[in-house]
């Protein structure tokens, strides 16, 4: 599935995810946890999100359309690059 570009905030079933690529260090914990939860194996390509890098630095974080905002990625992010909240 093609990732959506420039996602900063999305709302769905009363949840929103704030994404701060400037705080992302590229540790990929989010993608690894997501793929393990939903695909039963660890591989960042299988995650419902992507961390896009350029020249070693994180430029963008995107969510795939099938992301359900379960919040798993936000719970393993220790750098504050993803935060889950309730949408108004």
């Amino acid at each position, binding site marked *: 599935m093609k990732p959506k570009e420039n996602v900063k905030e999305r709302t769905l079933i009363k949840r929103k995810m704030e994404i701060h690529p400037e705080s992302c260090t590229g540790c*990929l914990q989010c993608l690894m946890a997501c793929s393990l939860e939903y695909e039963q*194996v660890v591989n960042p390509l299988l995650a419902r999100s992507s961390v896009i890098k350029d020249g070693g630095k994180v430029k963008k974080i995107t969510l795939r359309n099938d992301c359900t905002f379960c919040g798993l990625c936000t719970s393993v992010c220790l750098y504050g690059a993803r935060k889950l909240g309730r949408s108004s």
Partner: protein
Amino acid sequence: MKLNGYAGKILYVDLSTGSIRTEALDMEMAKQYIGAQGINTRLAYDILEPAIDPLGPKNAIIIGAGPLSGTPTPGATKVNLTTKFPLNGAIGTAAGCGFAPQLKWAGYDNVVITGASLRPVYLAILDDDVKICDASDLWGKDIREATDILRNKHGQDISTICIGQAGENLVKMTLALIDTISTLGRGGFGAVMGAKKLKAIIAGGDTGFGHHGIGISDKKHFQELLEHGMFRALSDRNRDVWVKCGLMGVSEAWYRNGILTYRDNRREVPPGDDTVAKYGIDAYMKEIEAIPWAPPSCITCDKSILKVKSGEFAGLESPQSLPPNSPLLFAIPYGLSMAEGLKGMDILNRHGIDVIDMIAIIDVLMDLQKNGLMTAEQMGIDLSKIDFKTLSKIFESIAKRKGFWETVGDGLPAIFEKVPEARRYAIEVKGLVPALDGRTSLGIETLGLLTLPRGAQSFSLVRSPSTVVPGIPPMMIRVLAGMYKIPLSAQKRIFRDGRCDLARFLPYVENHNTALNCAGLCFRFYFGRIHSPVVAAGFYSAVTGIKLSAEEFDRVGERVWNLQKVINVREGFDRKDDKFPERWLNEPIKFQGKDKWTMDYTGGEKVTQEKAEAMLNSYYEEREWDIERGIPTEKKLVGLGLKEAVKV
């Protein structure tokens, strides 16, 4: 049967013939050695014939990922490289951050590269598509330039191990950089790759990450351990400052304790408070902006992409493995600005030159000139006053092997051969410069630099916790002994008469950290605190499904440590090479205005030659080795299941 956690394949590449083949990973070997450093060491024992030329085609580059690499286990970042190092001829394992996860996602646990190409090449490991590619457009380029080209060609998510011009020119004081930031293979790995005409190794898939998924046997237990690890990481009171400015966060404690803070060829430690004011975090952050950088699964990143804010080098951006290098190695000893220090680091990194040896050797050469043993004319560069221009000239001369600097680039052993008097001014163990100094900190970390079979590696790779430094009360060390699951009978030997025998403590720390390395785990202090033997063995069991107790986990570390020692005994290393540097025993360092000698801190006594020998005796005895020769005994090897290694 393939186990979870493992990719299940070893890749063999012969650069002389161009042959590429894979073999299934022997799961019995995996159980015995866990992976990464363990399997690498076993392969090195089998593949590397004794006394081969490190720069010849028979030397092998063995790269290994652990069973936890490529999973979200906190700190499962480490790739292990095993080879014969040209600077001192030792065979050992170096660890760096990154590459291992990408190698696992490409479908491989270990890679063995032998032979030598006639023309410049790079090895591309892209899922099942493994190829030896032409690197004529990369040869001659620095590490940053070459990595940019590779990323643009193969995708930004690949991981790279790349060498600079110094490695191409077979300078022995070289290493490689992983993803342009993490150092790998102090002691000449750059030259080993250069001799094989191998500019880079890349791992990934057709457009970035590989497609191999890593299974986890017990997801629920894994999740519990992950939560525990994250909680421990977040509750570390220093975490915020590490994330903000990388390892620079610990620099002020180092300045105050005289750790890595030297001047005048380690004759003096500048006053701690002055150094904090001039080169502390606030002063540093005024000049330098730090962008935190982490390899996969590093939840407490200590590396940064640094950017100079203003002045002559404004806008300079340089990824740095150890951010405090600029003040510690350039600003404090030579009075340069931190921006100049970063520029110096940037030049060395791009060329792939090891900074720790580099700076220490400049100090030795300055002493030689000061004492009339070498002249500026002989060296081609006047070292009576070091400024940024002089340093730049030195770096260039070494990378290009110009005149006298060809010898310098080959490290202290080569200098000793040419100028024997240099021994008097140098501080080295097995030809490598220890970053720590015994006179300011003879904790387990420093002692471990003497016993490491590979030689005194850099600060971060010592097989010991940085929690055991002078000033830590024996009671605190006792807590650590409990965490390390040291048997009570051994604890009785370690803690006697209100003191701690650090030499007897050391083997247990070495065993545990080696086991962590085998699993692919980082053992820097913040991860060391998370990964006690119980937790690390728990992660290993949850991922692979092999039930391993904490004691069994560390026993693997002991097996690997003994085997790597045996390999080096085969190369002629023994007790004579584990010695204390002479200057640590014969010359004080000026610290806080007073002469400071090497001390056994918990016993409160000066370490004399006799005491130093006694400490080594204790170490070998605790290891159950031959004390006289400082090597493993037949009984020990058989007990560890290494019967075949007895013949050495």
